């Protein structure tokens, strides 16, 4: 069917015309945005630590809850996807990415019902994070227990 062209040759041809992604620009944006999320997190910890009854550890948890809440809220309002698309790893590597993936899946399947829709699909994108997070915690926990005595 095909005369001159083979898969390798064709790959070269497509590569020639494929637009180059601006990796440096994307990395700088991700770095800056990711850094800003870190700064925001630190500010929140400092803010919560100022409350008398809150310990530093509790302040860290409160900071995470706040970031998760904001990411979920912004996803639900509908503009966070455009931010994540632009900022890339700067927003989807921090906890905001997990919250965004989970909320967007929940919104997507809302119309298919609470059980077959949201229940079955909420972790469609973020399920891997949970599964491999639990597995690696288990594996590294055992290693730590064996070599460092817990």
């Amino acid at each position, binding site marked *: *069917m*095909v*005369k*001159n*062209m083979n*898969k390798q040759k*064709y*790959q070269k*041809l*497509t590569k*020639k*015309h*494929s*637009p180059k*992604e601006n990796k440096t620009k*994307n990395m700088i944006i991700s770095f800056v945005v990711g850094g800003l999320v870190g700064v925001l997190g630190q500010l929140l910890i400092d803010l919560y630590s100022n409350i008398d009854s809150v310990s530093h550890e509790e302040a860290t948890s409160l900071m995470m809850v706040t970031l998760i809440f904001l990411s979920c809220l912004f*996803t*639900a309002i*509908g503009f*966070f*996807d*455009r*931010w*994540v*698309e*632009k900022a*890339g790893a700067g927003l989807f590597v921090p906890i905001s990415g997990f919250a*965004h*993936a989970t*909320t*967007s*899946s929940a*919104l*997507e*399947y809302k*119309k298919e019902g609470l059980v077959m829709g949201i229940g079955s699909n909420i972790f*469609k*994108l973020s399920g891997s994070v949970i599964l491999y997070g639990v597995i690696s915690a288990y594996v590294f926990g055992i290693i730590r227990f064996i070599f460092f005595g817990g």
Partner: protein
Amino acid sequence: MNIKFDNVFVEDVSTVAGPFVIKGPLKDKFDKKYEDFYDGENTFEKCEIKELIEAIKVLLKKTNKNEEDIDIAISSDLMNQLTISNFAYSKLNIPFLGVYNACASMCESILIASSMIDSGKIKNAICTTSSHNMTAERQYRNPVEYGAPKPKRATFTVSGATGIMLTNNKSDIKVTSATIGKVIDMGVTDIFDMGAVMTPSAAYTLNEHLKNTNTKVSDYDLILTGDLGMYGKKMFIDYCKEEYNIQIGDNYDDSATRIYDYKDNVYAGGSGPSCLALVTYSDIIPKMKSKSLKKVLLIATGALMSPTTSNQKLSIPSVSHAICLEVI
């Protein structure tokens, strides 16, 4: 495989265009528009069904016909089980065939209908297409609110529905021939690069069509490919030269690059079965009616992608079909 038709004519066309398309270069040429992805419905799917029914109703009104006057309807969309077409035609009293060749479905449905009309078995037929950015996005990629970064070579599914009425009654525009393409797989696995997936099948179909009809590229006022996109278009020109030694000239364009305003962040351009159909019916057919274009070759290109096989790392096959329209 080339088929020649003697007695098939275009009676009229209809277009319903959705968000992004209505801000593009063809914005003043559509029969109907809708502003947002829901258009008053509570799901994207219901919205798409509504727009397809709308396109059919506009077509019936323009041609002064009732549902009962139509011998058959052939319809296509991107959803699994052809959901949109099935549901739209459940509300209509027209004998129905559903076809799927992804974005090549437009030409596929026209060539099936034309064969039936030409054989004298039926007098008229309507061919409809539908696509919707959000329903396609959620089926083929990610939840719509999920902001995954996309590469520049990705395409942006067109939202809109179209219809064309073919008949054996003589009109200005004749469907003269069609070429049925073969499914070609050149080993592309990149789910964002539909242009690269479809280019080989588009070029194959073009070569077959030219060979079987004894025509040259320069015999056509316009050769319009389906939805290869901004970069796929360049690949197509190169591929035709290298593989078939066909020199593509200025009379060639790709519908994906004609549908959007690129300022809207639409990556490499449009895609979906309605992309070529919207460009053809809103722009090309009127130009043919006013005789500024006389012979047009449409090559609808379809990437036969399935998320399941793509996740299994299989490459994406593609098929393209061509239709030749001539002013008589």
